[in-house]
Structures are given as structure tokens and as C-alpha cells.
């Protein structure tokens, strides 16, 4: 009965013949394919161009240059420090913010998100205005004998300011998504707030935390604008990999491209790693998973 009704409706609507329908479908598929090709080409072409810009041995020479090695060391050191500070302080901060209701909470979250949308150059200016020699805290820091401007500490601050909000925002979302009843149960089982966070909250949010950490680390490795304004670009001190790309751009394009390729692989590795973390995390919490099934069939 329903099919008869359907036929009546389509014929009344003057539907195209089967052949025309097939043509229309083919056109749709072709259109979709063209759209995919255009978008993918646009996104992938520059990457391919970068990778094939010079022969591999030139690439390796570029990576062996002292300026590159210095930049790698500066980048790794400053990012490692900033990343550690972000995770160690940011995780409990995000947990508290996500799991507690208090007055002004949404204001705090907005403030955390502000550096995300702020242009990096403005972030650099703001850091100078706060911590620079003539800045807000400049004289206080000078009394303490601390001179931040154009030091590695300034690089760390710049990365922290620009990249940590990526972790904070992701971590807040991950903790907000937690099933509160499990944390409640942990409380009734005698776990205080710290143990609840360490043993239940963080492990259960680890997938989201890992993804957020990946995004934050990637942003930190690529940090440019705030660093060059606040810390300057001195080889072996404040010149991170992105800054080295910029300073070599005029002097030695081949070396700049080599560093570019290196950064590309770092980004790809971070992306891949965070996807891996997220996937393994969803498999071991989902009921459909059969991983690690051992003594399940009951010997009774």
C-alpha cells in the first residue's frame, strides 16, 4: 500500500525518467569528486612543493647546519619547559574550573580563551608591556635582578601565554564531559578531592587531555609572533625553529626550507600521536572492546 502511494506521488510530481535520474546522480558524484580534488590539491600542493623543493642531501645538509641545531635545541628546551608548566599547573586548574560552580566562573573561562583569539604579535606586545624593562612589572623584576627581555625565559613565557590556553580549554572540556557519578562514587569510597582527581578524573579524561596537550604542544612549537617581539631572535638563545626559518629566509633559503620540512614532520607527528591517543582511549573504555579478554569465560 505504501509503495503504491509512493509511485502515485512521484509520477504526479513529474519525476525524471530512470535514465535522467542516473545522469543526475552521475553528475552529482562527479561534482563531489571535483570539489574534493580542488580542496585537497589546495591543501596538499604546498606541502608537496616544500618536500620536493630540494634534493634530500641538501635537505640533510640544511638540517646539519649549526644554526639549525641551535634552533632545535632552543625550541626543544623552551617548549619542554613551557609544556611541563602547562600540564602540571594547567591540569588541576582545568579540573577545578570544570568540576566546580562558583561566581565568576564563566569570566575566568573567557579570560583563559582570550589569548586563543588574540593576534600573536599583540600577545608579544602585551608581554613586553607586562614584563619588559619599561613594563608594568619591569621595575619590580629589576629590583629582584630579573631581566626577562630577550632571554630564553622570555621565549618560555611567550610560548606559555600563546599555547597553554589550547591545553586549558581542551582540558576543561574533557573534565566537564566526565560522568560525575563516577567521581561521586569515588568520594563515597573514601577518596578525598586530590585522590579523586588523580586516580579517577585524570585517567578518565586522559583521551581529551592528550588531544589538548597535542594541540598545545603543536601551537608552542610553531610560536612565532609573540616570541620575536618579546624575546627577539638570537641564535642559540632565543631563536626557535620558526624564528630560524624567518631569519634564514633572506640569507639561505635552502636552510630555511630544510627547517620548514623538519617542522612539518614535527606537526604531523603530533597530529598522528594525538589521534592515536584518542583512539586507544576510546577503545579501552567502550563496551564493544574485546581487547585484553582473558579469563572472561567463567570457570564455574
Amino acid at each position, binding site marked *: 500500500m505504501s509503495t503504491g502511494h509512493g509511485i502515485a506521488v512521484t509520477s504526479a510530481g513529474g519525476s525524471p525518467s530512470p535514465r535522467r535520474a542516473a545522469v543526475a546522480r552521475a553528475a552529482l558524484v562527479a561534482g563531489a569528486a571535483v570539489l574534493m580534488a580542488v580542496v585537497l590539491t589546495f591543501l596538499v600542493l604546498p606541502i608537496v612543493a616544500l618536500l620536493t623543493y630540494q634534493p634530500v642531501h641538501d635537505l640533510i645538509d640544511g638540517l646539519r647546519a649549526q644554526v639549525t641545531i641551535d634552533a632545535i635545541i632552543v625550541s626543544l628546551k623552551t617548549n619542554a619547559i613551557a609544556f611541563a608548566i602547562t600540564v602540571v599547573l594547567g591540569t588541576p586548574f582545568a579540573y577545578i574550573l570544570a568540576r566546580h560552580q562558583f561566581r565568576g566562573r564563566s569570566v575566568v573561562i573567557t579570560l583563559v580563551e582570550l589569548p586563543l583569539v588574540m593576534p600573536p604579535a599583540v600577545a608579544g606586545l602585551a608581554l613586553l608591556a607586562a614584563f619588559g624593562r619599561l613594563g608594568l612589572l619591569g621595575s619590580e623584576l629589576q629590583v629582584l635582578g630579573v631581566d626577562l627581555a630577550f632571554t630564553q625565559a622570555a621565549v618560555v613565557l611567550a610560548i606559555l601565554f600563546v599555547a597553554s590556553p589550547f591545553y586549558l580549554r581542551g582540558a576543561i572540556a574533557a573534565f566537564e564531559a566526565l560522568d560525575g557519578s563516577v567521581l561521586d562514587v569515588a568520594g563515597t*569510597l573514601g577518596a578525598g578531592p586530590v585522590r579523586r582527581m588523580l586516580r579517577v578524573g585524570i585517567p578518565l579524561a586522559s583521551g581529551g587531555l592528550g588531544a589538548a596537550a597535542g594541540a598545545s604542544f603543536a601551537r608552542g612549537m610553531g610560536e612565532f609572533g609573540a616570541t620575536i617581539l618579546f624575546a627577539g631572535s638570537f641564535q642559540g638563545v632565543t631563536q626557535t625553529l620558526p624564528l630560524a626559518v624567518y631569519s634564514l629566509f633572506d640569507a639561505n633559503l635552502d636552510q630555511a626550507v630544510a627547517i620548514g620540512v623538519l617542522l612539518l614532520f614535527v606537526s604531523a607527528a603530533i597530529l598522528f600521536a594525538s589521534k592515536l591517543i584518542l583512539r586507544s582511549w576510546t577503545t579501552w*573504555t567502550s563496551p564493544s572492546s574485546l581487547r585484553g579478554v582473558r*579469563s572472561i569465560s567463567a570457570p564455574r
Partner: protein
Amino acid sequence: MRIVAGLERPRAGRVALGDEVWFDAARRIDWKPERRRVGYVPQDYGLFPHLSVAGNVRFAGRRPRPDLLERLGIAHLADARPAQLSGGERQRVALARALARDPHVLLLDEPFGALDAITRQRVRDELVDMLAVLRLPTLLVTHAFDDARALASRIGVLEDGRLSQLETPAELVAAPATVAVAALTGANVLGGTAIRRSDGAVIHLDGGGTLASAAPAAGPVRVAIYPWKIALTSPEMAQLTDRVLSVREDSGALVVRLQRCLVRAPVSAVADIALAEGALVGLRVAAADVHVLVA
């Protein structure tokens, strides 16, 4: 239940276990959940998905408890993750974990809510045995009177957040205090008008027919009558009559669904009464079995 566990704070009232006052709004006492010694098993069991069965149980006592796993018959599942367990197994893990806390009171929130009908029956029987052995004060929340009757020594009926009756299961059935308690315990509830008499009351039912009640009553009332207290007779000698909708057999008794009520009678007692669909039958109820309710 969440208030007893300390997970929710009421505006008024008092929670105490023995001499220990856990919450008192007037005296501003409010113990944190981790300080109250409760063995809380929430409806969805709240197992930690990232920990093994043994890890879940160890979380509560901070030490391995193979004895508890053994006692609850889940020792062979010690290394399994909660996601790999069946509903009944999960419940036993949650119970083992709650017991590892060495609780002074056990809180079971809808313990069978997440189970299918077959598992439910088995798990309930197991829980009856378990509670008998544990001898712990236990607070259990359920919507099913059968579950409450099987497990509880005393049943409190909550209506719109108010406790309307707190008694043993037998007392609850013997004298339901409200319409909701009567309906919950499986009684037929009928409306009518009572006229006081020296030996109780006569109730003229809204749909026709009269019943005698041993309890005095007057004015519009509701009466509760349990299906197994109604005798089926021929229409001529009945207090009220009704038409048969359906008849089915249930463990040696006939369950007769009538237009106005449900009757449960031994097969032998209704042998000579025609119970065809649509047939008119008579009903008789002893005055002592007619419970007059506050409407």
C-alpha cells in the same frame, strides 16, 4: 540516598547512623562523603572503566581484597575491565567494592534497574542471600514492590518526596495507608460513598454494588481490596457484579481480569463458575478485607 551518602545537601533535616550525626541542617553539621562510611552502589554501578575488577575493589580499601572477590564469585574476573562484564557481574563488582570500604551502612540505588528480567530474578535471589550473611543496615531504593518485599524487613513508601508509610511488608499489605501504597502493593482501588453503621460502614461503589467494611467511614472514600481476598460467586448471591475481560493461569491460581478489578483465586475455588470472556460474575469480599483509604 544521595543525601545519606553526602552527595547532595538538603535544606533541612538530619542524617545520623547510630550516635554519629552525619548531617544536621540546624547544627550546621555536614560530613564529606569520604568521611561517611557508606557502601554506595548507584543505579549504573559507577564502576571505574579504567581499572580492572581487582583495581576497582582495591580503590575502596587501598589494599587487595581477594577474599571479597572470592565471596562474591568474581575472583575469575579479577583482571577484566568493567566494559567486558555482564550486568549481573557488574553489580557484584560494585557490591564487592562497596564492601571493601568496610561500610557501616549499605546504600543500593535501584540495584536491578539496569538488568533484564531473567538476570534480575537471579541477581535478586543472590542479593537476598548476601544481605542475610552481611547483616549490615541496608537502604535500598526500588520502584518494584516485589523487589522490596523480597529484600526488605521494612518498606518505606515515598510519595512526592514524603514518606507516607514505613512498615514491614506484611503490615503494608494488611493495612495500606494511602491509595498509592495500595496500588503499589497490588490492590484494586475502587471509589464509593460510605455510610457509617454500628459495626463499621456500608460502601456504595461508584459503579454499582455495595461492600461492608469493618472500619468506620463516612462520605466519599476509596477502598483497597487485594485480588486474592475476593471470592468469585454466581451473580445472584454477590455484593457486586462485574464482567470478565480475560482469564489466565499463574502458578496454580487463576488471574481473572474484570472490568473494575483483578481477582486471583485458586483454580479449585472457581470450578463451578463460568468465566468466559464477557460473562457476568459475582464478587464477595469479607468486611475485614475492605480497606478504607484516605482519599
